[in-house]
């Protein structure tokens, strides 16, 4: 590892702090630009989607268990099941699938 992990942590912490504090201290008016407002609205969905797939399939010991966990997660959250429930079911699906696949 070439980079210092504590420097990484400091950079991320400082960036997070500035993002949150600069608008609170500098901007006293609401953002009016429809493009900017929409952009900030869509950003979390795009980021989380990009980070979730295909990562979920690659995080497990077998791709199949990841795919089944993804399917279970999408179906449950589509039906507005709570966040902890979705997460727990995903874990159980992986556990059972891998138990059956890998002995």
């Amino acid at each position, binding site marked *: 590892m070439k980079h210092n992990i504590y420097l990484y942590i400091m950079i991320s912490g400082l960036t997070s702090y500035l993002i949150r504090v600069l608008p609170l201290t500098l901007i006293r008016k609401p953002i009016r630009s429809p493009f900017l407002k929409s952009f900030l609205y869509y950003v979390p969905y795009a980021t989380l989607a990009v980070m979730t797939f295909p990562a979920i399939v690659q995080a497990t010991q077998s791709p199949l268990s990841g795919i089944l966990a993804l399917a279970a997660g999408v179906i449950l959250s589509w039906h507005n099941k709570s966040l902890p429930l979705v997460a727990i079911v995903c874990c159980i699906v*992986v556990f059972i699938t891998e138990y059956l696949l890998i002995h």
Partner: protein
Amino acid sequence: MPSENRTALLQGIRDGMPICIGYAAVAFSLGIAMRNAGMNAFQGFLISMLNMASAGEYAGVQVIAADAPYIEMMLVTLIANARYMLMSTALSQRFSEKTAFVHRLFVGYSITDELFGIAIAQKGYLNPFYYYGAMLVAIPGWSIGTALGIIAGNILPSRIVSALSVALYGMFLAIIIPPARHDRIVAAVVLSGFALSWGAQYLPYLKDLTAGMKTIILTLLIAGCAAYFFPHQEDPHET
């Protein structure tokens, strides 16, 4: 401390308790991801303490795992946490002129989706002590939860760690899928995210990028196109 501030502090602690419990669970699974990236419990505690951000920290962990340049850590944190700028701007409207400036520096440190949610639900101007009360329980829940996840990842059998490592993705799904059901543009954003993120592994140039850079570029592309062609109508603070 004036009695009104003490009342606000206690109210904040009370409202922060359920958030603390939820944070501990999410942070625990984030800790599993950090442990898989080679981080120790103290490092996990520190990064959570300083960032208070699930998506932002997870994106940062990818940067650490890839041993990517420092600038990438800054960019990926900026993108994954961009929404906090919007919340921070909204919260700036809720400070009374009489509230000392220094409170903005402390409250700002801990703007998260949930704390912003309970703060904005308060009537009238925000008493910073209400926010401090909620921070007092939410921050330890988050940072200690992360450290516990890393410790658990080290002592639990690999079969269980493998299962727990999908918990974070399950939570991400629980955040992005329900709004996608009601908003077709959000659904298109999510599907494009899945498709492009998968496709990027095979496309020239994109496949050589680190996970962090891929997240940055695809987020800017997808959210930028969606905002340009389909501006969001409602008040984004409601969601």
